[in-house]
């Protein structure tokens, strides 16, 4: 290969690829031209072809893999397929295959049915959303318990020693609910709803909290009940002027 002509050296190196036809067209054309004018290069190409023929003969004499090798390989592949089938991707593939097996009219019908179902769901959700409260939250004083709701209002300051359980029990017993507070001095604003005797807790009906003949709960009676509980309140008075 050691000549003083680099192009000729390169041609020598590329002769094997020229013999197999795996050479780029430009280099192939250059070698063809060189072969036409250089008998020695042509002789070396013959040597290359003899090497190629010998290599092909050696390889072809090696035979082919046995059927057993094939069986072993596909047994491994089948086992791998079985593992894949049990995995989540297997389910997705089976759904895909089920869809693919549908005829075009069936597929179109299924798609329409799915669209109709989606629209129905969207309508129901929208109706629920629009028909309900527009607020995303509600305060404890909203609605019946709100400041504008009917009923009587009391201002109560619970004793520092009163426990949460005592306060809760008293509120349930009297039908009161906290609508505001604590304000300055620890005063809570409590609401006594109209008709509490008819809809309140059973304990109210069992006790004489009602006033006169209309069967309504008397704020005064409720205040007395609160004051009567030892250690529960330090202040309990009716609210005479609406706070708001």
């Amino acid at each position, binding site marked *: 290969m050691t000549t003083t002509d680099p192009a000729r050296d390169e041609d020598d190196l590329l002769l094997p*690829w020229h013999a197999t036809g*795996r050479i780029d067209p430009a280099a192939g054309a250059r070698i063809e031209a060189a072969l036409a004018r250089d008998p020695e290069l042509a002789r070396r190409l013959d*040597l290359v072809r003899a*090497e190629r023929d010998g*290599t092909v003969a050696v390889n072809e004499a*090696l035979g082919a*893999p046995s059927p057993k090798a094939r069986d072993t390989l596909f047994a491994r592949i089948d086992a791998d*397929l079985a593992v894949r089938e049990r995995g989540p991707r297997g389910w997705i593939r089976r759904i895909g295959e089920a869809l693919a097996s549908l005829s075009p009219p069936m597929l179109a019908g299924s798609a329409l049915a799915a669209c109709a179902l989606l629209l129905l769901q969207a309508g129901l959700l929208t109706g629920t959303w629009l028909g309900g409260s527009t607020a995303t939250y509600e305060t404890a004083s909203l609605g019946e318990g709100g400041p504008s709701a009917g009923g009587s209002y009391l201002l109560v300051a619970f004793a520092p020693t009163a426990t949460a359980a005592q306060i809760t029990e008293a509120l349930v017993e009297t039908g009161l609910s906290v609508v505001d507070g604590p304000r300055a001095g620890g005063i809570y604003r409590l609401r006594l709803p109209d008709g509490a005797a008819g809809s309140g807790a059973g304990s109210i009906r069992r006790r004489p909290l009602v006033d006169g003949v209309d069967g309504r709960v008397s704020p005064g009676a409720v205040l007395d009940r609160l004051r009567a509980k030892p250690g529960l309140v330090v202040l309990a008075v009716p609210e005479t002027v609406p706070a708001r």
Partner: protein
Amino acid sequence: MSAPSDEDLIRRIAGGDRSAMQGLYARHSTAVFRFLVRMVRDPSRAEDLMSDVFFDVWQQAGRFEGRSSVTTWMLTIARFKALSALRRRPHDELEPELAEAIEDEADTPEVTVQKASKAEAMRRCLEALSVEHRTVIDLVYYHELGVEEVAQVLDIPAGTVKTRLFHARKRLSDLLRTAGIDRGWP
């Protein structure tokens, strides 16, 4: 209908298509097997390695990016597995350049090859090359890969492929000369 390309088969294999795998195996198993036999010189071991190569193809088809041909990709995997197997061999099996292919039962290598025909001498000398030399010769002459493809399989630069093949051919000439066949080159 024309046969699916190797790339089509690989795409189907990536989707778990067993029949595509059968097609690819039918098309390439013999070439891969022979490549492995030439590297490890053991048909039984070559079959095991070939099975590993195709199982890798089955499992990794989704990662095939098409930057090389499927043949190049598979031969690259095969070479890697063969080299790993050769590294696990006992040292006495590691080959320098095996003169055993030339040596016959009784005669010296030279005498044995002289007895054979020129083609037979060529065969024996091709088998006697080192694994590095016969691999590059096989990839070029038998598997008919281009320079860049051989470079990918062997993971070496294209220029090195050319010089490695030159040295392999030069070594082949030396062996033939030893066997009494002077080619007048290099």
